[in-house]
């Protein structure tokens, strides 16, 4: 057993922490308020190589491990959950499936600019009537010569609208259900591919969430990842890795809220002493700290398993389930410790509480994670 | 045999800097305990007329080093002539002000004389026949007492505006000794000097400082501070947040990465009181905080606090002080 981070992982953590605190922190509240992301931050993250942490150098990445990636996402989320989801969705949901399932030509064409941060990526999976049930996608792709014609919509697409490159899961043969699915790479600007409404959300308000609309959108066959019939497989494998980054995001939000509450409890005085002198507050802080630490260990363990090439479907589901619920619980407590100030936008904990909720929902709700875990242990 | 306390008499544009008097008073105090004399070294061009006046502040002897090449401070020329003088006279201690010049010169002279140097001291005393200096470290979060037991001279720079100035003794003159300079090798050429023109006192020497923070909301609002500063004869300072936002120049930043100040009165408006800011001003004698956030950390260090919007408080404060002073 060795729980010590490597020298590189320590330096990465420190670097991303400094960056998040200095560059993102001062903008987080305003971006949330305006429901808009300051994309100059994206350019800075690209310069630092945060846009391609886990990919090989030959594809423009930093060739770091998933533990490093999880640490980076956590540190971003500790300051601003929206920034962490921009990176997480870009990396885990778009760049990764192209890396894992794309051919060499596709990697050169799509993965390299994604990893270098020249392009922003997104995944089109969820539909009005298909989310975690990836086999039920309705967006149809019909072969026409050397192309496919796409028709249908995708909803709640993170990085939608702003994204340049989309991995889109489609149905090529409804009768075959999930075996009749495929995954395509579609670029922004392709005729017939437009954006619907922008979602206005409870939390992660700075990140873009859009509807994708495909109307007779012609996509060449060479944009298909893996083979016809592999769409479901691509989606499932992508979600496996995605869970680690959402778990890391949840840990980061919780850590940020815990630190805010800890600091505030020491300076806020009531009845002539800091509120941290009250056992009621002390126990809350102890529980918050313990849960965050437990969530982090589950998260880093699942990242470690992935780095070791071991199965981690169950572990990453456990990490996401626990970290998300921890994040919600801890942020609610943090608002409570701040009292009235916690409910006001003067302090960041109310934003953190709103941001935390999404981690229990996207990339598989907590209920879906329980299905994954129970399927695994009852098999 | 080392003897005497030597003080660097800092002058600029023909005017002796206040820290020089502070050094002479401190020098006199320790010299009398050690049974030694206090002398000063005055360097520049056409500065000999200033030498006599140093006697009133306690200098028994003033070494004057004059040369055209010494008109503007350069590290090389000043280090050459001052190190030569110190070598010849072998004082027990050589004290300088911890100004930009004093700090720069002290390091070069200390190394040339192969001795120790204590920077930015806030007190000096004699204990068991040894000169002991007090200096803050970790931006004022800890304090050390330190000495230089063997190497001579003992060298230190003293923070301006902290040590008291004794009442000058009118008519007391100092023996003036003109020292022919050997300017030596000067490798640095000064191409241009840009003076910051301000009618207000310099931050590190000011008796009163009016300082603004993030709560000022923008550079246009510094007028409120300037108005208050004008009625008080104060300098204007700012926290790092204002400098980072580009509202005010770095030269007026107070704090760990800016200036360290010790005025009699420090008025902090819209400053939350981050530890880095406190590092630069917590040795002020009286601190006043104006902040609308009653929880702001600055109130923990303030002698007087007003919880309220600075945009309402400052204009009234300016008017009231004007009335009191009328």
């Amino acid at each position, binding site marked *: 057993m060795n729980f010590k981070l490597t*020298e590189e992982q320590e*330096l*990465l953590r*420190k*670097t991303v922490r*400094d960056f998040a605190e200095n560059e993102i922190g001062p903008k987080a509240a305003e971006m949330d308020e305006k429901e808009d992301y300051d994309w100059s931050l994206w350019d800075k993250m690209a310069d630092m*190589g945060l846009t*391609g*942490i886990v990919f090989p150098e030959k594809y423009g990445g930093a060739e770091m491990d998933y533990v490093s990636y999880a640490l980076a996402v956590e540190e971003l989320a500790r300051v601003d959950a929206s920034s962490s989801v921009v990176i997480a969705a870009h990396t885990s949901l778009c760049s990764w499936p192209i890396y894992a399932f794309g051919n060499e030509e596709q990697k050169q064409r799509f993965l390299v600019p994604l990893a270098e941060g020249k392009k922003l990526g997104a995944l089109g999976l969820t539909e009005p009537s298909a989310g975690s049930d990836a086999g039920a996608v309705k967006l149809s792709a019909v072969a026409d010569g050397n192309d496919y014609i796409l028709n249908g919509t995708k909803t709640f697409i993170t990085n939608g609208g702003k994204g340049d490159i989309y991995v889109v899961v489609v149905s090529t043969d409804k009768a075959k259900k999930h075996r009749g699915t495929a995954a395509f790479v579609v670029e922004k600007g392709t005729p017939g591919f437009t954006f619907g409404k922008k979602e206005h959300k409870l939390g992660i308000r700075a990140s873009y969430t859009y509807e994708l609309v495909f109307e007779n959108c012609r996509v060449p066959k060479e944009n298909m990842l893996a083979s016809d019939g592999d769409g479901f497989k691509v989606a499932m494998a992508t979600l496996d890795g995605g869970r680690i980054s959402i778990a890391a995001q949840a840990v980061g939000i919780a850590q940020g809220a815990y630190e805010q509450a800890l600091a505030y409890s020491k300076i806020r005085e009531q009845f002539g002493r800091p509120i941290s002198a009250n056992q009621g507050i002390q126990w809350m802080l102890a529980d918050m700290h313990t849960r965050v630490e437990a969530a982090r260990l589950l998260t880093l363990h699942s990242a470690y398993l992935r780095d070791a090439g071991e199965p981690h479907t169950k572990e990453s589901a456990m990490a996401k389930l626990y970290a998300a619920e921890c994040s919600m619980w801890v942020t609610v407590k943090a608002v409570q410790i701040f009292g009235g100030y916690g409910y006001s936008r003067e302090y960041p904990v109310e934003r953190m509480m709103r941001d935390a909720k999404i981690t229990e929902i996207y990339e598989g709700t907590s209920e879906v994670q329980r299905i994954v875990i129970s399927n695994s242990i009852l098999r | 045999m080392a003897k005497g306390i030597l003080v660097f008499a800092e002058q600029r544009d023909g005017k002796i800097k206040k820290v020089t008097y502070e050094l002479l008073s401190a020098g006199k105090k320790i010299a009398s305990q050690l049974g030694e004399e206090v002398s000063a070294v005055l360097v520049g061009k056409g500065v000999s007329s200033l030498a006599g006046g140093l006697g009133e502040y306690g200098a028994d002897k003033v070494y004057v080093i004059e040369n055209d090449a010494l008109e*503007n401070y*350069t*590290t*090389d020329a000043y280090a050459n002539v001052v190190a030569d003088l110190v070598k010849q006279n072998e004082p027990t201690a050589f004290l300088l002000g911890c100004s*930009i*010049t004093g700090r720069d010169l002290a*390091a*070069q002279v*200390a*190394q040339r004389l192969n001795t*120790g*140097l204590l*920077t*930015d001291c806030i007190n000096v005393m004699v204990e068991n026949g040894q000169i002991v200096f007090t200096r803050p*470290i*970790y*931006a004022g979060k*800890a*304090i*050390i*007492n*330190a000495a230089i*037991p063997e*190497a001579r001279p003992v060298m230190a720079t003293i923070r301006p505006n902290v040590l008291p100035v004794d009442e000058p003794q009118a008519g007391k003159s100092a023996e003036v000794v003109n020292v022919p300079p050997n300017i030596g090798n000067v*490798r*640095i*050429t000064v*191409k241009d000097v*840009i*003076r*910051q023109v301000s009618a207000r006192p310099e931050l590190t020497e000011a008796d*009163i400082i009016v300082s603004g923070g993030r709560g000022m909301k923008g550079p246009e609002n510094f007028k409120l501070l300037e108005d208050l500063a004008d009625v008080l004869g104060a300098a204007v300072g700012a926290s790092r947040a204002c400098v980072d936002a580009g509202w005010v120049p*770095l030269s007026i930043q107070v704090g*760990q990465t*800016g200036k360290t100040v010790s005025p009699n*009165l420090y008025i902090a408006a819209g400053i939350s009181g981050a*530890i*880095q800011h406190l590092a630069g001003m*917590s040795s002020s004698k*009286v601190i006043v905080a104006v902040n609308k956030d009653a929880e702001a950390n600055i109130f923990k*260090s303030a002698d*007087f*606090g*007003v919880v309220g*919007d600075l945009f*309402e408080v400052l204009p*009234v*404060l300016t008017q*009231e002080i004007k*009335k*009191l002073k009328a």
Partner: protein
Amino acid sequence: MKIVALVKQTFDSEAKIALEGGKIGRQGISLIMNPYDEYAVEEALKLKEKNGGEVTVVTVGPDEATEAVRQALAMGADQGILVNPGTEDIDESTVATILAKAVSSLEYDIILGGFRAIDDGSAQVAGRVAEILNLPVVNMVTKLEADGGKAVATADIEGGSAVMEVPLPAVITAQKGLNEPRYPSMKGIMQAKKKPLKKMGLGDVSLDASQVAAKVKVLNYSLPPARAAGKVIPGEPAEAAAALAKALREEAKII
């Protein structure tokens, strides 16, 4: 251009200082590269980008100070040298002597450092190094151009700033405002471990303990007395402001 950057590892500026056994405690303190030295490293990298050449980072400190050197390597420096003096009884003359010895074995056109460290704030090590190596020094530089045989530096002086020209090699110390240090990139972090980092002791730079004995002796450490919180003047803003003016005159007798 052969560029040397002198760096120091310091406590984080937000570190809480406590005494342990009469000395400054190191427990639970996170360590960083002295922020002024970050400016020096950034400027070194900029000079390299403009003029070509290589950047060598030199530090004196315990083995854990390698973290600061690795950070500089991750930012883009080419190689690092750490000299561990093997004792905590060191002062500025000790450090300058060791640094100068380590640097003298290198080729250099310019030596950069922070003008002071945020821990002891001594602002004398780089100047001493210049003196030992018989080089000119320009302190508190906010703008630097260096090529061929000279450097032109804008530096803080008493009451303003000055533009100075100095022949190379020279020592230049960085003041805040010189630049915005870059963050190490992820690739930089991965490459840093492959770059040469020499760890040495006093003997490796041909010094012995007697040559670097500290001249300054610390007699004791203490924590500053906490400032007692004063009084908050009650009332509406205008009312309180008037009361404050009165208190400053009559109670504090300061205006």
